[in-house]
C-alpha cells in the first residue's frame, strides 16, 4: 500500500478495529448459514475479503503483514484443492465424483445438528473467492 494511504484518522481507526472483526464474524456466520439460509461460500468469501481490505485501508501495510503473515495466493490453490478433493470422497464408495453426503446428528444441548460434506466443498469456495478478491485488489493497490 502506498504511503498515501497511511491515514491518521482516529475515528476511522477505532471504528475499523471493531467493525473489521464484526464483518469477519459475519462472514463466518454467512458461510455456515449457507446451506439452509441465505449465505454460502461465495458470499462469505467476498465478505472475508472485505473485512481484511478494510484493515488494509485503515492501517499501513507493514502492520497488517505482521498481523496476518500469509500469502493470499495460496488460499486460492488451497481452496481449489479442497473443493476438488471433497469431490473424491464419493468415488471411494463407488459413487460418482462430487456426490455430497450428509446426515443428521442429535447432540445434547445443541439439539439436532447436520454434518455434510457440502460444507467442506463450500469452504474451498470460501477460501478461493476470498483469496482471489484479495490478491487482485492488493496487487492494484500496491502498484504505484
Amino acid at each position, binding site marked *: 500500500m502506498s504511503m498515501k494511504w497511511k491515514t491518521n484518522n482516529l475515528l476511522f481507526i477505532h471504528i475499523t478495529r471493531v467493525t473489521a472483526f464484526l464483518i469477519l464474524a459475519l462472514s463466518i456466520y454467512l458461510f455456515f448459514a449457507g446451506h439452509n439460509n441465505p449465505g454460502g461460500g461465495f*458470499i462469505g468469501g467476498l465478505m472475508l475479503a472485505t473485512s481484511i481490505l478494510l484493515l488494509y*485501508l485503515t492501517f499501513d501495510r507493514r502492520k497488517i503483514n505482521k498481523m496476518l503473515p500469509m500469502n493470499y495466493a495460496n488460499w486460492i490453490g488451497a481452496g481449489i484443492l479442497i473443493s476438488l478433493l471433497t469431490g473424491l470422497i464419493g468415488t471411494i464408495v463407488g459413487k460418482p465424483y462430487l456426490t455430497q453426503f450428509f446426515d443428521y446428528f442429535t447432540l445434547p444441548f445443541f439439539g439436532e445438528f447436520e454434518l455434510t460434506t457440502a460444507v467442506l466443498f463450500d469452504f474451498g469456495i470460501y477460501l478461493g473467492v476470498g483469496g482471489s478478491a484479495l490478491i487482485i485488489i492488493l496487487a492494484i493497490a500496491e502498484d504505484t
Partner: protein
Amino acid sequence: MSLTLFAVLLPFVAAIFIPLLYKWLRSVHTGWFVFVIPLVLFGYFLTFIPDVMNGNYYYHSISWVPTLGMDFSVFIDGWGLLFALLITGIGFLVVLYSIYYLDKKREALHNFYVYLLLFMGAMLGVVLSDNILVLYVFWEITSLSSMLLISYWYKREASIEGAQKSTLITVFGGFTMLGGIALLSIITGTLSIQEMIAQADTAVNHPYFLAAMILILVGAFTKSAQFPFHIWLPDAMEAPTPVSAYLHSATMVKAGIYLVARFTPFFGGTAEWFWILSSFGLITLLYGSLSAVRQKDLKSILAFSTISQLGMIMSLLGIGSAALYFDVPNEIYTGAVLAAVFHLFNHATFKGSLFMAAGIVDHETGTRDIRKLGGLMTIMPATFTISVIGAASMAGLPPFNGFLSKEKFFMALTDVTEYSIFSIESAAIWFPIVGWIASIFTFLYCAIFVFRTFGGKFKPDNFSKHVHEAPIGMLISPIILVTIVVIVGIFPNIISPVLLEPAIASIMQGVPQDHPAFNVDIYHWHGWELELFMTIAVVVLGSLLYATMRKWENFSIYQRERDPVNGLYDYGLKGLVSSSKGVTKLQMTGRLKDYLSFISVFLILLVMYTMFKFDAFGLNLAGMSEITVYEAILVLFFIVSVLAIPFIQQRVAAVAVLGFVGFYIALFFVIFRAPDVAMTQLLVETVVVILFMLAFYHLPGLRKEKDKPTFAFPRVMISVAVGITVTAVALGANAYQQGHDLIPISNYQVENSADLAGGYNVVNVVLVDYRGLDTVLELLVLGIAALAVVTLVKLRMKEGEDL
C-alpha cells in the same frame, strides 16, 4: 479397484512423493526410490505371462465418466503385455543408469524423476487402456512429459527449441488423432477398442472409414517420427541421455507402432492401410538411414537410426496387414508381422544399449562429436564392447538378434513380390530394393558410430577433462541389455512362445489362430537363400563405403548435417507466429470499449440469428403478475441513473451513479425474493467501491472523448440492440413456456433440495451439489483470472512492448 488398475496408476502416485523424498533425504540419490517402482511393476507384469501365453487376456474396467462412455479399463493381451514389459523393464535399467548419469548435487533430480514417472504411468496407460478416449488422454500425457524431459536443462536454448518442436508436432498429431477417434466412435458406436475390432467387417463400408484411418495414422506417424514428421526426434536429443534411451528410442516413439498394430485388425486388409503404412515406412527407413550417415554427433546418429528403424517396423506392419485380406492365414504375411514384433523387441535392446554407451562417452569425455572422438578402445574397453555388440546387432550381423530380425525383414520384403493383391505387381520390386539400400547405409552408420569413436588415434587435446572408463554402476544397465542381445541372438526361441507368439496373435486377430503360421520358430540357418545373399552384399558394400570414406567425406552433401525438412517447419512456424500476430493486432486494440463492442455485436448476431431462424419471438402476458407502484418507481430510477452515466464528467460522480445502478439491481433481487443473489450483488458493489478508491490515484483525469459524435453513434446502436435482444429473449422464452406447458427445472430442485442434499437454501444446494462441478471449475477460472491480474499489474510493460 483392482491391482492392475492400480499398477497403471502407481507411477503417478509415486510421482507425488518424489519431491518430498528429494527434499527430506538429500543424501540418498532420489533415483534409488524411483528405481523400485518399475522393478516392482516389471515383476508384476511378468506374472501375466503364463496366462497370456495360453491365449487368454485380462480385462478389468471401472466406470469413470459414464455419461461420456469413458471407462477406465485395462486390457492385457500379448501385444499390450510386450509393451508393458518393455516400459517397466527398460524403465528400471534406465533409472539405474540415470542414478550414475545425473549428479545428485548439481541436478534438479526431483523434476527429472517426477517427469519420468509421469511418462512411465502415461505410457503404461497408453498400452493397457482399452477405452480409446482414456488412451488418448494418456497419449497426450506422454507428449507432455516428453516435452518436460527434453527441456529438462531449460536454460539451454536448444533444449527449449527441441521441446517446442516435439510438442508442436506430436500434439498436432495427437489432436488429429482425436478427430479420428471421434470418427471411429461414430462408425462403431463404442469407445472400446476391442468392441471396435469386433465390428471391423461392417465398418469397412462406412463412408468415414478412410478419413478415420488417415487421421489416426497422422497421430501414429507424428509420434513414431515417420517422414516427414520425423524432424522433432533429432532435436529431442537435447534431453539427458537416459531420457533419449528410454522415451526416444525404446518406448514413447513406439507408441505409434503400438497404435498401428492395435488397429491392424480393424483397418488391416484394405489396400489403403497396406499402401500408406508400407510406403511411408519404407521412405522413412531409407531417409533415416541416409541422414544418419551424415551426422557428426553420436546421439544424432542414433536419433536418425531410430527414425529409420521405426520406419522399418512400420513398413513391416503394413506388409503384414495384408494377411487380414485372406481368410486363410499364410506364413508369407504373418512373417512380416513376426519380423515387426521381433525387431521391435530387438531394437529396444540394442538401441537402448547404444544410447547408454553414447551417454557414457559424452559423460566421460565431455563431447559427442565424432570429429573429436577416437581411440577410446583401450581407454574404455567395456563401453567399446557394448557398442560393438549393439552396433553389430543394429547392422544385422550374426549371431546377434538384429541379424535374425533383419533376415525376417528381407524375407518379408522379397515375399511382397509374390503378392497378387492391391495391384502391387509393378511396384513390388521396389520393396526389397529400398529395404536393401537402406540396410547398406545402416551398416555404414553403425561402422561410423563404432570406429570413429573407438578406433583411430586418441587425441587428448580434444577433451577438456581426463578421459577414463565409466563407473561400474553406469555400465550395469547397458551390459544387461547387450547380454539380452546376445542371448536372444543365439537362442531366439526362448522369447518366441513367451512374448512373440501372443503379441502376433493379438495383432492378427480375426485370422484363425490354430494355423502353423502362428507357431514361431526362429533359426539362423535358412540355407543359401536370397536373404542371406542380401545380407552378405550389405556387409560387403557397406564395408567398401566405409573404407572409401576419406574420398567422399568432403562432399558438401555429407558436410551438411541439418535435415532439409526442418526448413519447412521453420517456415511454417514463422508463418504461424506472424499470422496469429496479425489476427491478434486486428482485434486487440487495447481499448475496453472495443472489446465490449465485439462481445456485444457477436451476442446480438448469434442470438438474433437463432431467434429469427426458429421464429422464437413471442409475447404472452397471461400469468404475469401485476406491476406494483414500487416496482415502477424503482425501474424509473434505474433507467434515469443508467442514462445519466454517459453524461457525467467527473469520475467520482460516475462511479457513484454506477453504484446506484448496482444497488437498484440488488433491490430487484430483494423484491423477487432472491436474498442470496441480492447479498452477492451488494457485496460485489462494496468490493468494487473499495477497488475504485484504491485505484483512483493511478487513473488519469476523466477527459472528454475526442472522438467525433459519429463514432459514438454505432455504440449507442449496439447498446440499444443488446437491450432489445435480451428483452426479446426473455419475452420469447416466457411465451414459449406458457404455450408449451413446460415445468421449470427449479421446481424439481426446490422440492428435493432438503431430501437429496440436506439443505433448505436451494440456491446454495445448486451451487455445492446439483451443479458442483460448474462451481469448482468457476472457482478455477476465478483463481486463474486473479493470478493473471496480479501478473499483468506486476509485469508493467512499457509503451508498445508486447508479450
